[in-house]
């Protein structure tokens, strides 16, 4: 009788427990299935459908167990689709839906990476600065330096980008790339100064020889006409030719030199960006 009572009590408890928890357990089970379905779409790069299923999961996940993962993955979907503004919204929501430091860090880094991609690099740098000053992320310095380097590269500040990669590794490949770009770039100030001294020399400096010769020729000829007018006492002619023609070409020569150098620098930076996009195998924003 005693054994019978014990067994009956155990069985009764099991029934009560199963009735109580079965619904909850099965709810978790179907949410897990929904999550794996959404993850499958995500891994198959069906981002539009994946977003729908993650959103559906969040809608039915009353206990908000999967909120971080869903928001984070929706952010990734939008990011991969090029919708950076939407991606940032979801990464921020992901950050708010977790208390785990690693998750918070990853969410914020993703926000910074989206800002790099949409070229709002000042925002990216501000986020990275904030992360750097938080003591709980002290062991994440390398990540912060890495993405700061990327932000600075996109902002065309190769010198500081190089410095940022240097903190990770003095021989970091991206540091070497930044140094290379910085070394190849032309100096705008130098081009302007030599153009003031000898018209056309700024264009020679940036490799635009024909433009340099043209500029030199115009300035010599118009300079001669101006001086000649003054020598022949045609003061008004001298003033008009000097102001309207010679100064226009002299000023144009300096501006031209500046524009050529800027264009050459853009070409050098673009070549580096092409390399980063097509040949660089490390992590990209």
């Amino acid at each position: 009788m005693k054994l019978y009572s014990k067994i009956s009590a155990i069985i009764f408890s099991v029934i009560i427990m199963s009735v109580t928890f079965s619904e909850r357990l099965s709810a978790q089970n179907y949410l897990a299935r929904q999550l794996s379905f959404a993850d499958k779409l995500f891994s198959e790069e069906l981002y539009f459908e994946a977003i729908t299923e993650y959103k559906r999961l969040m809608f039915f996940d009353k206990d908000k167990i999967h909120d971080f993962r869903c928001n984070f993955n929706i952010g990734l979907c939008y990011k991969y689709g090029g919708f950076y503004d939407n991606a940032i919204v979801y990464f921020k929501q992901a950050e708010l839906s977790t208390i785990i430091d690693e998750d918070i860090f990853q969410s914020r880094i993703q926000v910074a990476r989206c800002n790099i991609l949409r070229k709002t690099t000042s925002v990216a740098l501000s986020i990275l600065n904030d992360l750097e000053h938080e003591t709980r992320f002290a062991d994440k310095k390398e990540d912060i330096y890495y993405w700061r380097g990327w932000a600075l590269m996109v902002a065309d500040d190769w010198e500081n980008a190089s410095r940022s990669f240097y903190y990770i590794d003095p021989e970091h490949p991206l540091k070497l790339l930044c140094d290379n770009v910085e070394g190849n770039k032309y100096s705008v100030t130098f081009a302007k100064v030599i153009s003031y001294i000898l018209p056309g020399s700024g264009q020679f400096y940036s490799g635009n020889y024909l433009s340099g010769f043209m500029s030199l020729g115009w300035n010599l000829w118009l300079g001669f006409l101006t001086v000649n007018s003054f020598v022949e006492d045609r003061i008004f002619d001298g003033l008009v030719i000097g102001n309207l023609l010679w100064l226009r070409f002299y000023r144009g020569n300096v501006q031209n030199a500046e524009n050529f150098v800027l264009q050459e620098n853009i070409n050098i930076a673009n070549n580096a960006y092409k390399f980063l996009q097509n040949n660089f195998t490390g992590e990209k924003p």
Partner: protein
Amino acid sequence: MYNNSRVKFHIYPWLSLILLVILPSLHYSQQSFNDILSAENRLKFGNYLFCQKDYLRAADEYREYLKISNNDTLRFKIGYSLFKLGRFHESMDNYKSLFYNSALTDEAKLQFIKIKFLLNDFADFRSIIDQKNYSTNNYPGIETKLYQLSLLFDDLVTDSLLFINSFDQDEKNVMLKFYMQRKYPGYKNETTAGILSAIIPGLGKIYADETGDGITSFILTYALSFLSYNNFKNDHNTRGWIFAGLAAYFYAGNIYGSLSAVQNYNAALNFRFDSDLRLYLSQKNYFIHEPDFLCK
């Protein structure tokens, strides 16, 4: 042995009971997963997406729901979603499906008319309004307002009183302002500008509100003319002809520039009128009160 046999004897009903309780709950897991995609849940999820302004996905969910059950509100919301996504023609086709035997017929027709108005083909818009098929029973006032506004956009308003009286009391002052702007826009005259510039270079540009350009034109034309005169006077005939050519070029350019400045001035007036009126209409939602279920 006795006890064991008793246990065996009594355990079967208990086991049966356990299986009765646990097996359905295991089955419930699969069922609940499928339930997420049930029509009811699709509707709930669609409404959530709609309120989140994720119109593309909301419309998809509503379409799935409509495969199982008819719902005019959802058809309306699909039309609204497509309108918000800028898919105007698709949206109008959706609204058309509500034109007959629906409680939302008038609302759908209003939205249809609004989209027609937004397409900027006002002649086509008026022909639609003139066809009584598209008229609403309860909102004839809104149709009249939009009809009169389409005439205003096309500068075809002939009766100012009829125009103003189409609007509510609180709208009349604003509409009167727009009407006066359209009727008396303050255009500058191209011929006047040309003649002024021909008499005094640059004056046509000053007339067209481009004072800086006008003064520059004046100085350049007179400086080049003087240079030409001075060179001829000093027997520098070649330079005299060069400066004369330049002066003539700048003189002609100044006249052409004045005409162009007047055209720009008039185009800016039209643009300002159009954008001001559109902004006002947009703020008033084209006089249409949207249904409450649109999650505003």
